């Protein structure tokens, strides 16, 4: 799978990332780093233990990472969750679908990157 194809499948913006990072080689190098980025698992752990502050930070970081790599789809769902978590003290059921969406998009993204 080429980098371009990868972006198509995981619904990212290939043109944008290429314009910023300039080469496929560099894009690939950093996509692989996304695999080992801990913010998603930190997010899950924090949500499980209903630690809202940590969850916000992790979601925020995940969003930043995705934005940097123009992984638009996951960036969008992470961003929605981040905003729902911002300034929040307690867990609520409204978070559940947002987290679920992030998990789904994350799984797709990881699968695509692994095929590079």
């Amino acid at each position, binding site marked *: 799978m080429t980098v371009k194809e990868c972006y198509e499948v995981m619904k990212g913006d290939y043109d*944008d*990332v290429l*314009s*910023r*990072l*300039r080469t496929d080689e*560099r894009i690939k*190098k*950093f996509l692989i*780093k*996304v695999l080992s*980025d801990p*913010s998603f698992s930190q997010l899950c752990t924090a949500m499980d233990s209903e630690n809202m502050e*940590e969850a*916000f*930070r992790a979601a*925020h*970081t995940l*969003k*930043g*990472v995705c*934005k*940097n*790599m*123009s992984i638009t789809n996951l960036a969008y769902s992470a961003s929605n969750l981040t905003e729902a978590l911002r300034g929040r003290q307690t867990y609520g059921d409204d978070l559940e679908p947002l987290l679920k969406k992030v998990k789904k998009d994350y799984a797709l993204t990881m699968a695509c990157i692994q095929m590079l």
Partner: protein
Amino acid sequence: MNAKKKILIVDDSEMNRALLEDMLSDDYEILEAENGLVASQILQENEMDICLVLLDIVMPVMDGFALLELMNRKGWIKNIPVIMISAETASTYMDRAYGLGAVDYVSRPFDERTVRHRVDSNVILAEKQRDLSARLAAQIYAKEKDNRLMIEILSHIVEFRNGESGLHVIHVHAITEFLLNQLSKRTRKYNLNHKLISLISNASALHDVGKIVIPSEILNKPGKFTDEEFEIMKSHTLEGAKMLKDIPFRSDEPLIKISYEICRWHHERYDGRGYPDGLKGEEIPISAQVVALADVYDALTSRRVYKPAFPHKQAIDMIINGACGAFNPLLSDVLRECGDELYLKLQETSQGDSSAAEIDSTLARTLKTEGTEASDRTVKLLEHERTKFKILSELSREIIFEYNAEPEMITLSEWGADYLGMPVKIFNLEESSFATKVFAKGDFSALLQKLKTASPENSSIIEKYRLDIKGVNTWCKVYARTIFSDAEPPVLEGAIVKIVDVNDEISEIKSLEHEVEKDYATGLLNRKAAKERIDSALSDIGNRKFALVFFDLDNLKEANDNRGHLFGDELLKHIAEVTKQNTRTEDVVARIGGDEFIIFMEYTALPEEQVKRIFSRITQKFGDFNVSVSMGVACADGEVTDYKELFEKAEKAAYSVKNDKKNAYRFYDGSMANVLKNRGVR
């Protein structure tokens, strides 16, 4: 020194840091921190090297705003540009960041060209700023130096005609400055600030410029002036003033105005009895009042054609008592209270040094008041001081560490770190093995608490802790000196702490105590120690049996007389040695006086065999000298249980031998009760 410039990237996402590093690492060396706290530690260490910080806002432990606040408190923000790299571009966030001194921001997603451009331009800008302030500093320095030089040349010309050494101008300058500084601490009446003080001190050099028109026969006349000559001499005040007034340009210059005051009125007196105008009290400008006093003091303490030099104390007394006319009481007070300090200052003042030091302090003040950052020179000086501290602490082979309050960290001296097996830099103090292993539980927190509650007035701390030094529990003294900021109220910046092993000290005291029990000449126990041990054995005697043997030398006097005292001393040592060798370690062997010894020993059946053996060993020849002792023995066998009684009986038995044939031993029996009544227990 052509290393790449350093950039610090602070972001909790390793990904983001890696991206930025990738974009910047061609041109810069990259340092990374995953949160504000780590960043602050890196900044603390590399403040001078880091040319730019890229800073995220949302981070664990310490966020970007907190780091910016810290950078403000530490003053780093003035020298190091900060670019925000947060995904948070909400205007409230950015406003707050700008308000805290951030210079720019780069939004996510990062665009390589934008990142490089923003970083490059901000680095260049900051560099230009630094360069400019260094140039400014250099210019101020040069200008100040030139000004001073011109004034000094001019005044030396005057003094040269005057036949004076040239030191007068320098002394008057130093005294004037000293008095003004002291005066400014006591009163606000004269609005004395650094600038004015420096101006008056500089202008003081011109006080006698009018003497240029006085004929040198009068100037250098050794004897008393005639009235007419004195009038001419006095005119130097008005002449000097006139010269300054006639300067065609820049008559508004403060330096010229003040010089005018000084020239004209530095011979006025506070009671109105000076010249030329007879001004009184505060009619005389403060500049002229102070220079007048400085002039008089230096004239008194220097030799002149018409007088010898008076000593410092006498000069001060003369001025205070009004022998040289009346001065402002405030100035007399300063002289009375700080006269000695002034004297010391003048001793230190040598020509070249003083003006270089002056210029340095002017420069430092100018830079400070005009808000410019530290110049390269100061940075170099600072580095020099650091190196000095480092070398000294290594040489001392002591465990020394520097405690830094914010960010909280410890820097151990290299030797100390090596010795303790600890890293040089220690963060997360409370959990570090330095705080938990080297210090016992709670001790380190207690020490930190002490440091934190110290005050600038009470900045020394001495505590004793038991530390684990390489696995050995060791008593140590901890000396700490806290360091506070200049701010009001002062803030604790850190402390220098020294750890000294006092275990040796303690064991030394123990061995000293032991020393006291001993008889100095022979190394046996002394009387006091022997008595204690015997008392203790007797108090717990049970069924055991003890014998006390008392003996003295029959012929020590003969030895001393015939062979000298050195031999006598050797003989005593020999007896002690032999006695020691022929008794058991648990026996008490003591020398209780000149040639008198006792042995206190346990026996089972009968003591006679033991005593006999000891007696025969002691009385063997020492070289060719026949040793002769009179020995008495008393037994503690249920009847006698008291040291005093036991001792008296043994002593009586010994003297019954001495009175008889000498050189024998004998056990006490009732018949000896009346021997030697005149001798008590020693």
